Each structure stands twice: as C-alpha cells, then as structure tokens.
C-alpha cells in the first residue's frame, strides 16, 4: 500500500458503468439454470452476478437490470448487492486483475515490498490499470493463504510463496 493512502478511510465511492449491451442469450440461460437450483430464486442473485461478470468482465448496469428482472427484485436492490461484495467489478478492469494480499501474515512476509515492486515495475499505483489494459493492480484483505505468504490472486488462481522474480515471471507470461 502506498504511503499516501495510509490512514485514509479504505472505503471508496462506487461508480457503476454501462457495457453498451446486455447479456447474451447463453448467459441468460445459465442464469435461469442457476435460479432452478435453489428453493427460492433470489438465492441465485450472487451466482447470476458471477455469470454476468464472467461474460462482460464486470457487472454492468445493463446486466444488473436484466438480472433484477429475472430474479424479481428492483435494479436498486441488485446494485446494493453488487456494491457490498468486493469481488464484483462495477466498471471495466484490466485483462488480468492482480489482487495482492496485504493482511497481517502477508505483511509480515513482505507484502508491502511486493506491492512497491509491482507499482514500480508496472508503472501504476494500486487501484490503477496499465495503459494497455493488461493489468489492474489491487490490494485485498486476507485470502486464506497465510502459510504461503506473500501471495496474490490473479483471476481464479492463487500464486503463493512469491518473490520478486517469481511474480515477474508470472506477469511476463500474461498477455
């Protein structure tokens, strides 16, 4: 975490973006399948948002409206849920989102240095995306990988026991 951000409220304003299009028929079908799995259809809201994000890269306003319609809640209700959970993106992000854990165990094993290294090697600050849209760098709270600290999550995958050389090699392999 950069020194400038220390001591400031970690909460940030939520901005919702449009995608310019709605979800595809295929995704909407998968949302219907998710709804069918639960005794009550509102339980499919989190799964539906995952499906939307999988297709569009974030939970667009259009997707939120389509999901609200299907689940039978208001778009505002969906927006309230989207903004509660840190893993849903409310606007477009880089092709790869690098989430570096900075909670106690990772901090003890050098996560601050890791974040500093990534900021200088990528030329961006935490919360920013590289100009080519390749990588978004974020810091996150404990990912449950404390015995293999420091670590980060990139997309679905955990990368553990990180060194500068190891993370450089991983990022070099990502286009």
């Amino acid at each position: 975490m950069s020194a400038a951000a220390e001591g400031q409220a970690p909460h940030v304003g939520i901005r919702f973006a449009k995608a310019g299009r709605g979800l595809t028929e295929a995704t909407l079908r998968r949302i219907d399948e998710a709804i069918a799995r639960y005794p009550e259809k509102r339980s499919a809201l989190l799964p539906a948002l995952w499906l939307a994000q999988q297709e569009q890269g974030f939970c667009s306003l259009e997707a939120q409206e389509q999901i609200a319609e299907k689940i039978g809640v208001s778009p505002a209700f969906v927006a309230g849920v989207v903004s509660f959970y840190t893993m849903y993106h409310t606007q477009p992000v880089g092709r790869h989102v690098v989430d570096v854990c900075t909670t106690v165990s990772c901090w003890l094993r050098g996560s601050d240095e890791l974040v500093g290294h990534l900021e200088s090697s990528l030329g961006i600050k935490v919360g920013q995306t590289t100009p080519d849209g390749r990588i978004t760098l974020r810091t996150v709270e404990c990912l449950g990988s404390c015995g293999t600290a420091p670590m980060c999550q990139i997309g679905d995958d955990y990368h553990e026991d990180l060194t500068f050389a190891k993370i450089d090699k991983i990022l070099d392999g990502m286009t």
Partner: protein
Amino acid sequence: MGALTEKVLLRHTSHDDQTDLDAALERGAYQVLGKALKMQPDALVEEVKKSGLRGRGGAGFPTGLKWTFMPKETSKPKYLVVNADESEPGTFKDRLLMERDPHLCLEGFLISAFAMKASVIFIYIRGEFVHPWRMLDEAITQARAKGYIGKNVLGSGWDVDVILHRGAGAYICGEETALMESLEGKRGYPRLKPPFPASYGVYGNPTTINNVETLAIVPFIVERGADWFLGIGKEKNAGPKLFCMSGHLKRPGVYEAELGIPLMTLINDQCGGMLNPARKLKAVIPGGSSAAVMTAAECADLPMDFDTLAAKGSMLGSAGVMVMDESVCMVRACERVLKFYAHESCGQCTPCRIGADWIYRIVSRVEHGGGTTADLDTLVSVCDGMVGKTICVFADAAALPAKSFVAKFRNEFLDHISMKGCPTKGIPAGAR
C-alpha cells in the same frame, strides 16, 4: 499433551488424486456414511454430544448440543449449512481440507445432515476459493453419481440435496446469519438474534450451521466412538485440531495436534522455530486477528486450547496463529490488523461502522507521527463504545485486539508519539 500419534484429518491430504473417487473409496471414503445411515439419527447426535466436540470455526460452541436445538417435529424443511467462508486473517485450514480431501469433507457433511434429518446441505464457500470450489464441485458430482447424494441415499430412505454456493468477497459473511442473508441473495448483514438459526435460519426454516473442520471430524467420531475423541487433548477441550501457523516461522503451514499443545511446541518442534533464528519471538496472535495479541512472555507456557486462551483474555478462535519476531513494530502490526476491520465492517451498526474506521485512523496517525497521548485514551474509549453494542461480534473482534495491543505494547505507542513517527520506519522483517 502435544503431537498426535497418527494423523487424523490430514491422513490423506498428501495424495494428489483427490478428484479420483475410486482412489478415495480405496482409502475408505464413505464407509462411515454407510455405517451411519444404518444408525438412528438421534444416536449419532448423542455420540457427537458425548464426544464434547467444540466448533472449530471460532466460537468453540459444543457441536452436539447445537444439533439438539433443531426442532424434532416440524413440517418445515431442515437445512445444514456448511460455513466454508474461511476469512479470519491467519486461517487457512478449511481450504486445505476442501482442496486436499473433498470426499472426507462431503462424508462429514452428509453424516451430520443425516443426524439432523436435514434435506438440503448448503455449502457456502468464499468467492476467492475458486480451486477448493472446483474440487468440491467435482466431488459432489461424483458422490451424486454413486448415490451418496440424492433420493434414498444408499437405500436408507433419506433424501438429501447438496447446493454449493459461492460468495463474492465479504469477511462478514462468515458470521452465521450474515452468511444466511448472503445465501438468500442479499447484502451480508448479520441478523438480530434471537431467533437463532435452529428455529429461523435459511428462508426462515430450521438451520444448523457448522464449520468445515468441525464436520470433517464427525466421521472419525462415528467410526471410532466418542471415547476415542475424548482420549485426545484435555477435559472440555478434546480432540485433534488443525493449527494454521504463519508469520516469522521456518516452516509455516497447517499442523494437526492435540488441543492443548503448548504454543512453543508448535513453533519450535512442528514449524522448525523462527524464520530467522537470530531474532527472538516478540508476539503471537493465537486465534486469528480477532484474538488479543500475546507477548513472548505470555507465550512461554501457553497450552493452545479454548479455555486456557479465554482465561488469559484472548481466544483460540479459528486457531490462526500469527507469529512475529522482534523486528516487528507493534504499532504498525496493530494498524494492519485494524485496517482489515475498517475495510470489512458491514456498516449496519453505527458503533462498528464509525468505530472500526476511527480506531484504525487513530493507530495509523500514531504510526505515522501525528499521534498524541490523548489519542490512546480516545482509542480505548472508542473501543469501549463498540464492544457489546452491535448486532454481531464483529465490533468486539476489532476493538478487543486493538485494546490488547495498546495495553501490552503501550511503550511502543508512547515512543511513536514522542518521536513523532515509527522508530523502525515500519519496515517489516519478512521481505525477501
């Protein structure tokens, strides 16, 4: 009291063929389920009750007793919810079990659900755990194909469905009623209690919620009996337990030991001592970051069990043991702990929403040179305004550790204030 004579929960976790059901069956998977389905459900509850098993998620509540809270006669469906939202900083045991022995986990879930005659098992897994989620998902598909899940399980006449539900990033969803709200497609706001989940849980139906490790030990209790379980550990703190060892250790990781094992045995024998042997132990957070910090002197002779740690003003919690050597600035460590709570407060109750952020900013100010001695009094006063004044225990989980850091390392806070900054410049020791 100490090391186990054999591995229990971790006995098969070194195998790399976890999604091969045949290999798991060869190792004995689902044999206890077959035995359990031939028993009376009440007898299973009784055996777990007799074993004295206490919940491994953090609170240490007696599991068997919790199960008896489920109504016997009801027209409503009954649910078992598996809390796989492992998010307490320093905790990574359930992830290991789900990744490395998903069929053992499922067997434990199924036996426990049968004991309570639950018709649906909801597994709520934190959104970040994509790999464990895939492992469980595959195990569920395989178990369904073999008839361990579905209608009339193994000819017992009992029907059960398993729904694997993925969270999306929110620590508070590990709180049992916040988890249920989230499962119902809402923001994860903890519910007022009472009513408790056993009478009003998911969709208002009777629900029992247990941690993954708690349920994974159930097959062993059913197979070997409550007396076997009671023979491990100590009175009222029985059984094998997974300890999550992290921080400045030579060999961090998940270790299985008897409840009551001395902390220094875990550190020196199991984990190979400190990462840098030239540096002395300074402090340990023994039970996830919600537990009060312990000084090196307090750690010298410290049995790791629920009651001992509670008596010493801390807690075993989720057994997330975070070890710090003498290079660590305790003000900065406290700041790091509180940043987590400031970020994760769900915002429902004012004392927590305002307080968690406030105490973080105070400690941050002290660490970065702008603190005054009055700040320390304000900090304690804000903490006292949080504890016990909110819907769930999150506020306590932020305030109690904060108070422990200030009480036990007050001189470091005062040094920061008089020197107008951090004497160590906040440089953590573990950088590679």
